């Protein structure tokens, strides 16, 4: 068990190293010049050159990367080119909002997705099943900015149940979480449905029924823990997909998270922030996957002994 966790942590470090190299190289090759952005249109070539030297951007790629990496292992993510603050401070101030949004989204998608999947599986072949699957299909295929704007229009503008945007209270959280969660819930409901149908066919479910257990107990105590196993592994992967969605959703709802930070940084070619957000996202994905594996381990005794 401890060995497994250590092994996975070691793998995670390698993954993060790989991510940092790839992102760094991609940004280095970017046709946009960050120095031009900093210096402004009217700057003289001399100023541009000075800034370039000052930031160390005149050095070869490997030297730049080495400098970044040595900073990184000491916990230094560098300074923003334009905002003149530490990247770590910027991210730290915005990370809680994003994590909150993510937690809300995971909760929303699991609640909606799993219950839709379970109901569809239990009512397999009926109109309930078919309607639920059509709804989940719409959820999977609708673009997030459309869903976000639609939810805003209906629930904030027309009905006025929730605020139009911003951050602070629980009601601020509902619409952005739903927007992020609807995509995932479409996925989860489909996976949960097929997984549940598969499990309900298993011999041990028949055994459970043959014992004279109630239907509720058969479904929730016997079928569900087995059906949820493949879903748990999905949650880890899902966090990666969230990172993409967060950029869009935070812009639509004016949510002050790292998605917005990344969006602004990309527009201004603020490389240290882009690097920082990418690494933090990668770390979140790695931790998410690790947690998913640990939860699987907790549910499934067969993996534990392996």
């Amino acid at each position, binding site marked *: 068990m401890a*060995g497994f966790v*250590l*092994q996975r942590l070691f793998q995670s470090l390698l993954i993060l190293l790989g991510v940092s190299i790839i992102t760094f190289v991609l940004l280095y090759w970017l046709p946009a010049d960050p120095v031009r952005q900093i210096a402004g249109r009217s700057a003289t070539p001399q100023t541009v050159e000075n800034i370039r030297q000052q930031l160390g951007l005149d050095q070869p790629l490997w030297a730049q990367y080495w400098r970044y990496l040595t900073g990184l292992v000491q916990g230094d993510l560098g300074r923003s080119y334009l905002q003149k603050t530490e990247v770590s401070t910027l991210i730290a101030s915005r990370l809680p909002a994003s994590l909150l949004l993510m937690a809300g989204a995971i909760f929303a998608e699991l609640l909606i997705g799993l219950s839709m999947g379970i109901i569809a599986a239990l009512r397999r072949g009926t109109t309930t099943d078919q309607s639920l699957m059509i709804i989940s299909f719409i959820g999977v295929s609708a673009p997030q900015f459309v869903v976000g704007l639609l939810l805003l229009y209906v629930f904030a503008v027309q009905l006025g149940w929730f605020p139009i945007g911003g951050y602070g209270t629980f009601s601020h959280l509902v619409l952005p979480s739903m927007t992020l969660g609807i995509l995932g819930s479409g996925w989860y409901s489909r996976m949960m449905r097929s997984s549940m149908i598969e499990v309900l066919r*298993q*011999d*041990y479910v*028949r*055994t*459970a*029924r*043959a*014992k*004279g*257990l*109630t*239907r509720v*107990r058969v479904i929730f*105590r*016997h079928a569900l*823990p*087995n059906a949820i*196993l493949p879903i748990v592994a999905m949650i880890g992967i899902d966090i990666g997909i969230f990172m993409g969605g967060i950029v869009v959703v935070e812009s639509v709802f004016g949510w002050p998270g790292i998605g917005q930070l990344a969006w602004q940084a990309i527009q201004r070619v603020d490389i240290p922030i882009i690097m920082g957000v990418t690494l933090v996202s990668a770390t979140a994905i790695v931790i998410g996957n690790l947690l998913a594996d640990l939860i699987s381990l907790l*549910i*499934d*005794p*067969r993996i534990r*002994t392996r």
Partner: protein
Amino acid sequence: MNSENTTPFKVATSNCPSGTEPVLRVDQLAISVNTENGLKPLVHELSFDLHRGETLAIAGESGSGKSLTSLAIMGLLPPPAVRVTGGSIHFGDQELTTLGENAFRQIRGNRIAMIFQEPMTSLNPVMKIGTQLAEAICAHEAISLKEARLRALEALRSVRLSEPEKRLNQFPHELSGGMRQRVMIAMAIALKPDILIADEPTTALDVTVQREVLDLLRDLQLEMGTALILITHDMGVVAEMADRVLVMKGGHFVEENHVESLFAKPQKVYTRNLLEAVPKLGDGSGEARMGRPDEDTLVAELENVVVHFDVRSGILGRVTHRVHAVENVSLNIRKGEIFSLVGESGCGKSTIAKAMVGLVDHSGRIRINGHDISPTYGAMSNQTRRDIQMVFQDPMASLDPRMRVGELVREPLVIHGVGTRQEQDQHVEYLFERVGLARDQIQRYPHEFSGGQRQRICIARALALNPKLIIADESVSALDVTVQAKVLDLLKELVSELGVSFLFISHDMAVVENISDRVGVMYLGQIVETGSRRQIFGSPRHSYTKRLLSAVPTPDPSRERQSLARLVGDVPSPVKPIAERVSYVELVDMGDGHLIALEDTMK
């Protein structure tokens, strides 16, 4: 119903009209499935009674409706497609076919309990044994979880499971098949039900384990006076266990009688055919084959073959344990000979087959038709591959469902570039006729065939390249006995007519006796006894061979059952720490090629 030709016998049965009311009365039961073309009947007007303390066997081949009948009694028919469409099931004064789910739930597991065929999949893999047992008790009795666990422990003791306290906290995957089936039985008897339904309870188990489980069921039934419905395809099990037998075929009632009368004087043709098709130990049915093997030509020579699998663990993935699948096995197979390997699951018989077709690495020497096989996986020459072919156990899974059967049989020819398209067509047609299928079936898909026909297709495919040796790994185990008998006849014909040799791998002693020229008995990766069929079955010398033979249920109710020394625990594990050496058995020639392992060299 057949009361006029019943003779009073065993005390446990109370079938005289003045006796007690039957505990279960099934009357004109009909079960149907909803299809697109309306209701399709699966079980037709079935009637029988069950009395306290008696064992009723429902026997029949696949599709006979015997399992559906038992599920109907349990109220577990797969809804909504399959349901009872007529007749009644009376349990005491309760009518089960119209009983509401809630009332039924209180009978299920409590008054009527069931044991299923597959112990490996019948227990919830993510729940502890103790919890699974305790919840069955708690579902029917208002007792605390702690008390339920005590009752569970008691139930595990009564099924003679070793270390019951430890088992409570284990998960199903930590237990062997036999142990899991004991847990299933414990679960079923924990509440002392009036009726116990056992659906093929020993079919998935090894023969020595089957023997123990059958003994256990019989003892428990005597102790508790439970009525037992035993559903099985195995007439040997029927003969040993049943008081009365009900034979079914294709959803229809065929006949019902006391076990002795049924075996002695079957009334219906189908019953007679069924009984005749059952391979029996020691009936000399293997003598009939024409043609003798060619003593001088060896198609396969194995010398000191060893196959190990490494088990890695820890952070660095170091090899800490080793599975000793095959240890130092030597054997020869002659041209035109059927050599059988028998043994229980995990004894290494299938691994030998895999090594011979180059699917696993081995050390030692394997020669096929005079050519050495490379000891590493995948490095086999195409010529050698043509010489050796395989037929697998499950004919459902070993044919690609999206290919026409003709293409499947042609495929080996295409892969090896043999002949033109026309020549291949002709050869495929010849093969189809040779294995007893019609030419016009060539364009069909696998799902249009029955299990037996599919196995014939697999045999045709194996024959396509005119191999010297065909490995048949449990190739008839999944087939019904009447079908099995025909496929075995086909294999014998192929040997006599084409001179092909077979390595026949099976756990079924009676089948092996029926088909083999020579036999090797395997135990824990090693051959402990080998010789001609007559030597092994006529005068077995090794204690393991004797135990295997005596464990086989005899399809003859009049024969007194030999009592078998009870095994203590399971067969030892072939997985050993890397440092531990394995002691090889020493084979001694008893004359005429009859080799046996010295018992004290066996650990």
